[in-house]
């Protein structure tokens, strides 16, 4: 009984550890590429958690062969879900990397603080706001957003 507890404890430690490391990397990283890598790590942890949920101790692989009955097999449904999730995860990763490449082309940086400052400067320039001149009152006439000012300028 002790061995059973130990095996499950180790497996859940691995899954929760991967998710925790991935989340810490997403929150604490300042580089866009590192954030994408941390997202992949967290995804791997979630996949491992799902496979552990369907695992049965001393079970057989869910493949129909002679002498193995379905009651002796591990649960195949989470495995099918994880199979789909792995492929979707790679798709998400490819999409995120393509967006990172676009950001690099637009702002020539991958540091999220620099990107955020550059985006804020673009929004301010489009809205006609001249930056953070005052902390007490809005510094420009239009504080709603860039779209209103853009429409006014176009008409």
């Amino acid at each position, binding site marked *: 009984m002790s061995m059973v507890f130990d095996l499950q404890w180790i497996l859940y430690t691995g899954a929760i550890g991967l998710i925790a490391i991935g989340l810490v990397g997403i929150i604490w990283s300042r580089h866009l590429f*590192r954030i994408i890598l941390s997202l992949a790590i967290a995804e791997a942890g979630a996949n491992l958690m799902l496979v552990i949920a369907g695992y049965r101790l001393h079970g057989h692989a869910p493949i129909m062969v002679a002498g193995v009955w379905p009651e002796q097999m591990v649960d195949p449904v989470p495995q099918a879900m994880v199979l789909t999730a792995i492929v979707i995860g790679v798709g998400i990763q490819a999409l995120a990397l393509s967006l990172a490449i676009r950001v690099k082309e637009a702002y020539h940086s991958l540091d999220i603080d620099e990107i955020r400052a550059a985006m804020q400067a673009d929004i301010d320039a489009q809205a006609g706001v001249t930056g953070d001149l005052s902390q007490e009152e809005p510094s420009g006439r239009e504080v709603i957003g860039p779209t209103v000012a853009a429409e006014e300028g176009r008409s």
Partner: protein
Amino acid sequence: MIWITGLLVVVMLLAALAVIFFNNHVAAVAAASVVSLALSVLFLLLKAPDVAMTEAAVGAGLSSLILALALRRLGLTQTGAASATDEREKNR
């Protein structure tokens, strides 16, 4: 079973920590590939051979390929002197 599982979990978590703490981006991609590889062996031990096959092919193979190509497009491959490809990317 329990010892090899514990060893794989330790390798996996250390590689995941390396992904966060390595400064070199190529090394971080390699560490992410190690995480996927250890995870695929763990799936095999958990009696999920189809998931292990997919994780090894897609997670460790295709994902690393995509990450390496993106590293070249982003200009983060700092492995010494600038090659002709880097110069061409820089001038484009």
